């Protein structure tokens, strides 16, 4: 009887705390993270040559304006992603 009680208790605990207690239901598709990686990479001036990067646009150097544009795109992409994929 005691053994049965122990087994039942274990079953109850297993139900309450299943072995893998993660909640890995996917909310956003994988490609979303790839886009974020690209946008973050674009926000750092790896890709502009010195001559082009120092052109003044709106009074500021191009590399700085490019960074701000990448962040603006990231903000827009985030709003779109949340509205499209994150459901109730």
């Amino acid at each position, binding site marked *: 009887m005691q053994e049965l009680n122990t087994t039942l208790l274990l079953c109850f605990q297993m139900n309450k705390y299943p072995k893998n207690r993660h*909640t*890995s239901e996917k909310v956003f598709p994988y490609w979303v993270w790839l886009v974020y990686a690209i946008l973050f990479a674009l926000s750092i001036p790896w890709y502009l040559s010195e001559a082009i990067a120092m052109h003044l646009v709106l009074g500021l*150097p191009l*590399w700085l304006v490019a960074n701000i544009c990448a962040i603006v795109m990231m903000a827009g992409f985030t709003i779109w992603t949340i509205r499209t994929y994150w459901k109730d």
Partner: protein
Amino acid sequence: MGTTGIIILSVGAYLILLLALGLIANRQRKSNTLKDFYLAGGNMGAFVLLFTLYATQYSANTMLVTPAEVVNKGMGMILILGYMTAVVVFYLTFAPQLYNISKKQSFITPGDWFDYRFKSPKLTLLANGILVLVSVNFLLSQLMAMGHIVNGVTDGQIPYWVGVVALAFVVIVYETLGGMRAVAWTDVIQGIMLFIGLIGLFIMVMPSTDELAKISTWLIENEPKKITVPDVSFRIYWASLLLMIGLGGAVYPQVIQRIYAAKSVKTLRNSLGAMIIMPLVTVLILFLLGVISIPHFIDSEGVSKDTVLPEMLHYWGGLSAFNFGLMIMVVVALIAAIMSTADSVLLSLSSIIAKDIFGKSKYKSASSEKLTKLGKLCSWIIMFIMVLVALHPKITLWGLIELKMQILVQVAPLFLLGVHSKTINSKGMFLGLAVGFLFATGAFLIGVKTIGNIHVGLIGFVLNIMVAYSFSQNRNS
């Protein structure tokens, strides 16, 4: 009445408003439970949630450091815009899943998640120990900022120690009275003031593109290091900082508790969607204000990081009566920003100590009401000790941020891997966390902050994940 008198009067009025909000929040409470006190009943709407997240994330560090770093180091400091955006992006990597399970399991603290997912008391204790260390560090930096900014905006008429003691006292009183509800309401007022003040001031003082071009040209000719494209080593540092602060900033305990406090998925979704805009209307404005401040500090070598913004606010406020009004609003909002971050950190800290540490040891059988009382007592004791430490500061704000983030990022895998990984287990996670923490702290303490321009915290984070996976797989196989 002089400028300083008006500032003192405005700040005084704001402090009275905070105490009144604390009293109203106290009357609005539905019970004396942990959930009501620490999560405002878990019923926070989108508007309040947005502003409380905003006020918590944008602390004194961001407000004071951004323009000062632009003046001192130049335009490369636009990286702050990137990492504040990264924080919101990293929320999305785990917040949707964490929110769902927190509602089902009635989580109050980050430790509740660690317990639920890993079911290992020693892992929870280690993770909570790190969170307490980080929070104490963060709280200390806020208290020091209170003293500096009050001293700065009043032209030294109110000494540093009065700023620290007076503001800390007001914070602890309204927080004890109203808990998360009072904290969130004060955050809304602070957020709105900061919004109007910063945007208004920006519109008033922002030069034309021609004037900006003059500043840029002057920098190219006289201080090229402050404007030229950052070199490769700085770009690596930039990417490293972006990842480290993005990951670390997303798992602050006070932020995790705000995710738990959201009323619904829609509420959380809308708040995080709006949060992504905040760096553009806060950090970018502070950055540009920093750029136009550069000509004012041409002859100043190594301007103090904590005083650029207060000094510039004084200058801009003197240009017109309207500017003066906006300046007063920004000054009060800055003080409010510091207080709102301090109150959130303190609230979170006391919940971890009361519920996760005492509530799982000495007060194991204590009721929720008793633990809430214990949490309030903890808040007073923590604040008292921290004020004493803040009165003898020996380290700059930037130093504090760097140390804090190197450690905090080690906790991120408990959320990221905990939510997404099927293989990770408590033994692997414990070893990973211990290795990451010891590596980052050890390196930092011997004076090594970066290796190959990559932060030791980020290297520790990678080691943390590698060890966690290795030992989890060994056990599973």
